[in-house]
């Protein structure tokens, strides 16, 4: 699989796919998309990078262990639900804020953070499995 063409294109392809996955994640609130599908796209990007250049560079590029990413995502998702306790409304109810940032109104909401949490969980869990299977091929 490690042809020179593939190895040359893989980093560009990966970075494009990760960018696209973040676009899909942020688009998810009102249109098709969201954390789950975005996470799958990002995980497949890392899988492609792993096939092309080996597993070790992927682990280096991710910096955190995938399982740590998944744990952090889970905490973020749960906490964005727990925030509703402070306001005395039911668990997971959406809370919205519209701060102005550099003259643009930005819509911040707990569903967004929940989705980011889901994104991280999916990236972490799927890349763990994918990288483990790719490592197995080497031996």
């Amino acid at each position, binding site marked *: 699989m490690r042809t020179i063409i593939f190895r040359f294109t893989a980093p560009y392809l990966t970075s494009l796919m990760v960018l696209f996955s973040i676009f899909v994640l942020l688009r998810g609130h009102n249109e098709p998309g969201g954390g789950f599908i975005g996470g799958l796209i990002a995980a497949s990007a890392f899988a492609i990078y792993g096939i092309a250049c080996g597993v070790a560079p992927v682990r280096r590029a991710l910096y955190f262990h995938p399982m740590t990413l998944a744990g952090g995502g889970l905490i973020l998702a749960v906490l964005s639900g727990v925030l509703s306790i402070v306001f005395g409304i039911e*668990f997971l109810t959406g809370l919205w804020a519209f701060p102005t940032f550099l003259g643009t109104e930005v819509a911040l909401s707990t569903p967004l953070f929940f989705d980011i949490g889901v994104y991280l969980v999916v990236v972490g869990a799927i890349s763990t499995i994918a990288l483990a299977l790719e490592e197995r091929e080497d031996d």
Partner: protein
Amino acid sequence: MATESLSALKAEAMTQASVAPIDYAVIMPVIVCFLFGAALLMMRKKVAWHPIVAIPGLVCLLAADLALLWRVATGGPVTMMMGGWKPPFGIAFTADMMGAIFVTVAGFVALCAGIYATASVPGSERRYGFFPFLFLMMGGVSGAFVTGDIFNLYVWFEVLLIGSFGLLILGSQHEQLDGATKYCFLNLVGTTLFLIATGYLYGIFGTLNMADIAEKAKAMEDTTPIFTLAVLYFVSFSMKAAAFPLQSWLPASYHTPRFVTSALFAGLLTKVGVYAAIRVLLMLFPPERAEMAPLFAWVAALTMVFGAFGALAQSDLRRFLNYAVIVGIGNIMVVLALPAAVPGEGGLAMSVGLSGAILYAVHSIVVMTALYLAAGVAAHLAGTSSLHEMGGLWRNNPLFAAVMLVLLFAVSGLPPFSGFWPKVALVRATIAGDLPWLAASILVSGFLLTIASARVFALGFWRPLPAASAADTRAEKNAIVAERFTAAGPEKALSAIPLLALCSFVVIAGVWPQWLLDLTDAAANGIIDPAPYITSVFGGVR
């Protein structure tokens, strides 16, 4: 204009009332499990920190469970709608008395097992995620006990299954892979059946909220499809609970992982299946369940008798315990065979029997967990768990042997321990329900299990150490076994504390059963008459 109509739509679709802080107790057990599980996952390399985080986490879980039990005991069933969407469209978490009791007992045994695990699970297996998997499984178990949505129940089943898969293969011995293969396939097929039944249920009722289903099933004129549903649910829950004839995966797998893992599985996982069977068959489809009662009576009787004979035939301590779990399941299943509670005609059989069955489940959760933990200590002291080679534990360690004796008495249903009162209630209910042969099978299976436990105690504890296994062969074997079991001896406080805590519950529940009976009576009434449950979900909506 746009904002006005939007708020009108919101008022239509979302709940408006604010939530009292104590009502968050419904969701707290699940939140605590996921937060601590995720935190432990993030620090997976720092194995020394795991117990320091995990034990307070389990204490928090138990505290949340107790808060929920207190809330339900004082204020009746409590509901929280996820995201504030009105029922029946939003996912409901509803805790009634039965769910609260189960979730509290589950939290109690999880704490005991967690303390035991800090002494017995080596660092390498902590690194592969013993504690995160434990919290994942407890999250699934707690969620299954408090959810009010049947598809959500399926999801929690899968969550606890994934957690249990992880715990089951930790260590990767030959035995474990063998047992795990059978466990995984059978449980996967069981939950798939659950999903099939839920698909049909959605097709028939157009709703997944349990309170809504209970009302719609009562109002339905042609009940034929409900029989199909009831049978499908019964088969899938029997598979989870290991009822005859779908039980053979349990003795094939439960003795293969670590003792502490076996203890949690034996205590909790089969009881989730029993809980779901009681919830779905007795609360949602009571008339259809009553029509099929003769079938359930046979299943219950054969499960107990099979388990008792299986227990008699075992020559290994752990495999004996596998069959003791099955006997307990048979006893709890008796409740499905009782005649329906007809309002006005007393309905003694059902109310006494259901209370007894819930009490039996509580007893079984505690005593099976304690027995597997005790078996871990025994295997560590004797260097083996085979009855051919064990012996002399009474002389070496009388206190531990006495604890084991109490637990074996309790599992056989002898007074004055916790197994006695639920059996009395179940026998009384079967006789009141005109099923004397079922009462006889409860007593006969209890008698056979008493013989089997007595033999375990006589061979493993009472007799002097057999000569054949003495000296040199033992030393050699000890080295191998000690590496595999690494169960801590009772001289280490960490394994003695949970064992004593569980054992004292067994004694207290046997000597002062009234407070427990009050709780289980309330739980049984909540299932027989689900009106408070339904009101708590729909509240002011209808």
